[in-house]
């Protein structure tokens, strides 16, 4: 070990970190995957062998330094290994959203100039074969799961295991190749290129270096005190920056174990079996977990219900303070610990969150009720302000100072400032290198001295906590010059469990109007309790009593808004419930489920016009696209409803 002193070989790339992990903690688990109903594990030294074999195999197939390789599939250990193997030979891995339709894939493969593709299964291979003719640069396709591919005879298709086999042979003949190739890499090299889903226009390829990823990951691990004993579950898309940090960079830096779920449908159960200590989820996951709990509590026996509600009330009063280490009376502490034995502990266990040391949420605003619910159970849930261009971390809520309305204080080594126009800007070691082949966009986003425009409007308060209001470009004005912040209102709407998605309009209009998507699970359950028959989403969404239900929610939001001096005038006057769910496959949402305003405004122009007329009904046709590219139309007659009484600012008080 003495001859291998760490400082002679800086650990500045993933392949080097992998070698180090194999040396220091070779017998500790590195990857897990549930297969055939059983959790299979690989230790760090096994992973190092797998990666080495694949890297050598890729070399024999002609992958050269600087080439790009697209990687696409569900979260699978083999695909994570492929990322590192590609990096080991000096090429650049580009993870692609696995549920993209063939056209979206074509754009990315073409733009990234990928010469190799490493994909999970037949589904992905089929999509690639569909567009392969138009991708002259794509030379080889490697797939992990051979099922259904036995009769595919194209010469450019290869099995992952066979590539590794070739690699092992090559490695025996050229034992020095792998180490030399790994040593050639350095921190300034490109680590990965991630395509941001982008709420406007085509996706942009964000180039991140090893330094960006490794330094940011090390800082984040240091701030939360993460060790190689952590367990985490990788279930969010590999193409998303968060997964690259939480399931790759931080795992490599801290040496902890990453589990992959059996399938995307089994995540909740896998979560319970793994019991992660470090956990990330967007707000909608916390919301749906809470909805499931509440639905099940309503079905529970009376005594259990009373016990649950009593102790949840106790938790609401003292839980947050206890978690933040504040002064709490002994009697209240005692009550809380009884609650912990009877309710909170078992509940967290059912949710698979009992071991969580740190849980993050980001991407969208989380409802204060939901946030408080989890924190009062004793779960250390924190909000992040994050972006792909920052390698995730911009601000984190610090332990002991977690306030639901802020996004926390700047992360280690991150500087945050507010530009004169109110836009949030940051500078950090994680700042991206450039947008691939798009100098104009790079120059627009990143200043010469390294500051990045986030495009979000916000402010820093007296204690240096960051508050985010909305996307700057989305903040508009009504005709009477009242400020209109669409996302702010939409988030308030979405905090109601019955509302899944909301889109509001108002810029340069006389009043604010809204499209609503109901949450089929929650409203469906509500309907079932009232013996309300319905045949599907469209039918349920059109029912009069569902409109009443949503109207109640909107009235509450209006009351809330009335209390705000700046936004009091932007109350919702008219709304409708959309006849179909907004879907990424139809281009209405991004792959990370953010609303694409322009697309929606174009597609549903008739409905918007109707909202700003005195019509009470509007008939629509909408095209839906299935994942395989087929499409179909849905026709419906949508009711438009006025909110009975505009609440004035005084009436709200």
């Amino acid at each position, binding site marked *: 070990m003495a001859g291998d002193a760490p400082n002679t070989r800086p650990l500045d790339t993933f392949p080097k970190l992998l070698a180090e992990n194999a040396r220091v903690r070779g017998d500790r688990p590195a990857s897990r995957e549930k297969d*055939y*109903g059983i959790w299979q594990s690989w230790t760090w030294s096994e992973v190092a062998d797998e990666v080495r074999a694949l890297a050598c195999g890729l070399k024999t197939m002609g992958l050269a330094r600087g080439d790009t390789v697209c990687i696409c599939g569900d979260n699978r250990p083999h695909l994570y290994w492929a990322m590192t193997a590609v990096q080991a030979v000096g090429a650049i891995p580009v993870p692609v959203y696995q549920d993209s339709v063939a056209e979206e894939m074509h754009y990315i493969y073409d733009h990234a100039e990928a010469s190799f593709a490493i994909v999970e299964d037949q589904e992905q291979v089929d999509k690639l074969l569909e567009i392969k003719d138009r991708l002259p640069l794509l030379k080889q396709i490697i797939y992990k799961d051979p*099922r*259904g591919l036995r009769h595919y005879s194209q010469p450019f298709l290869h099995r992952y295991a066979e590539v590794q086999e070739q690699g092992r042979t090559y490695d025996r003949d050229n034992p020095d190749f792998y180490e030399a190739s790994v040593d050639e890499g350095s921190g300034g090299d490109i680590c990965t290129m991630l395509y941001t889903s982008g709420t406007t226009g085509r996706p942009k390829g964000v180039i991140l270096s090893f330094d960006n990823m490794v330094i940011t990951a090390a800082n984040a691990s240091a701030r939360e005190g993460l060790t190689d004993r952590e367990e985490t579950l990788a279930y969010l898309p590999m193409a998303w920056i968060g997964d690259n940090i939480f399931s790759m960079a931080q795992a490599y830096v801290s040496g902890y174990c990453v589990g992959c779920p*059996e399938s995307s*449908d*089994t995540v909740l159960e896998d979560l319970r079996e793994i019991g992660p200590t470090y956990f990330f989820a967007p707000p909608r996951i916390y919301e749906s977990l809470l909805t499931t709990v509440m639905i099940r509590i309503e079905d529970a026996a009376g005594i259990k219900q009373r016990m649950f509600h009593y102790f949840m009330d106790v938790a609401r009063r003292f839980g947050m303070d206890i978690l933040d280490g504040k002064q709490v009376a002994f009697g209240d502490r005692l009550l809380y610990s009884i609650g912990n034995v009877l309710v909170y502990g078992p509940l967290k266990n059912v949710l698979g969150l009992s071991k969580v040391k740190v849980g993050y949420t980001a991407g969208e605003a989380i409802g204060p009720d939901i946030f408080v619910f989890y924190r009062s159970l004793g779960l250390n849930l924190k909000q992040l302000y994050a972006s792909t261009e920052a390698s995730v971390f911009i601000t984190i809520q610090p332990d002991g100072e977690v306030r639901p309305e802020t996004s926390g204080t700047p992360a280690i080594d991150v500087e945050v400032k507010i530009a004169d126009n109110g836009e949030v800007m940051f500078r950090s070691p994680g700042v991206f290198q450039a947008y691939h082949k798009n100098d104009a966009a790079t120059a627009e986003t990143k200043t010469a001295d390294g500051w990045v425009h986030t495009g979000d409007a916000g402010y820093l308060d007296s204690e240096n906590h960051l508050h985010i209001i909305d996307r700057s470009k989305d903040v508009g004005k009504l005709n009477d010059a009242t400020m209109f912040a669409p996302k702010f209102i939409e988030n308030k709407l979405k905090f109601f469990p019955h509302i899944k998605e909301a889109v509001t309009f108002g810029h340069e209009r006389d009043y604010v109007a809204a499209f609503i998507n109901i949450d089929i699970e929650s409203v469906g359950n509500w309907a079932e309790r009232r013996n309300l028959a319905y045949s599907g989403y469209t039918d349920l969404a059109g029912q009069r009593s569902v409109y009443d239900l949503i109207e109640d929610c909107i009235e509450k939001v209006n009351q809330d808004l009335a209390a705000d001096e700046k936004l009091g005038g932007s109350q919702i006057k008219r709304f409708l419930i959309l006849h179909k769910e907004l879907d990424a496959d139809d281009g209405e949402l991004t792959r990370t489920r953010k609303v694409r305003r322009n697309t929606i405004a174009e597609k549903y122009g008739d409905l918007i016009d109707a909202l700003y007329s005195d019509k009470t009904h509007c008939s629509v046709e909408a095209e839906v696209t*299935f994942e395989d590219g087929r499409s179909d139309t849905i026709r419906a007659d949508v009711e438009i409803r006025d909110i009975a009484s505009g609440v004035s600012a005084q009436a709200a008080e």
Partner: protein
Amino acid sequence: MDTARNIGDVLLNVEDISLSFGGVTALNNVSFDVREHEIRAIIGPNGAGKSSMLNCINGFYHPQDGHITFKGERREQMQTHQAAEQGIARTFQNIALFKGMSTLDNIMTGRNLKMKKNFLWQSLYFGPALQEELEHRAVVEEVIDFLEIEAIRKTPVGRLPYGLQKRVELGRALAAEPDMLLLDEPMAGMNHEEKEDMCRYILDVNDEFGTTIVLIEHDMSVVMDISDRVVVLDYGKKIADGTPDEVRANQDVIDAYLGVSHD
């Protein structure tokens, strides 16, 4: 394994089968054969005798006339469990699962005939019985993986939507590792997407395991797409037999489906 799709010799031969219930003739002198590794469809209007035909093949009904030869062995008055032992598994038109049991347990029942330990051993979860249980569980897990139903492994089947129940039923039949699979309307009542999935599973079963498949189905586009040969029954009689194209062009078939009056 590349021979899986090569259609082989005759596996099942049905000769001059006649079946009647009192005065009703369900099947009248029907003959056809099924070759190894083939997907064979039986179609016909309602009441044509399709399900009766399947019930004869797996020994549930005993035809008054004619005989059935399976794997070269001619059989008389066979019972259903004997058919199962010989390697015939089936699914039903109306789902016949144990509603209160989980998906896993339902599929495990498909292994029933292959369990060799006696009741006493099985009541002990120990030693050879445990070993046997593990081996069967491994097969069941392969079926679960194949049909992509991991997420419902522990869900009681009564709570599953119809399309998934059909898939579980197929899983139970597959767990028996059959040589011949009888599917009675595997796609009835499914939506477009579910049908597509089911088609893919049927083709994959045929392709990966080389299982011979006999299916009854009403959706003509499905039948014409996936089957190698089609038998058409009408009022208990065979009116056509051949490749999908031949059958499609057959005047009797067109009449039967468009409803020409029978005098």
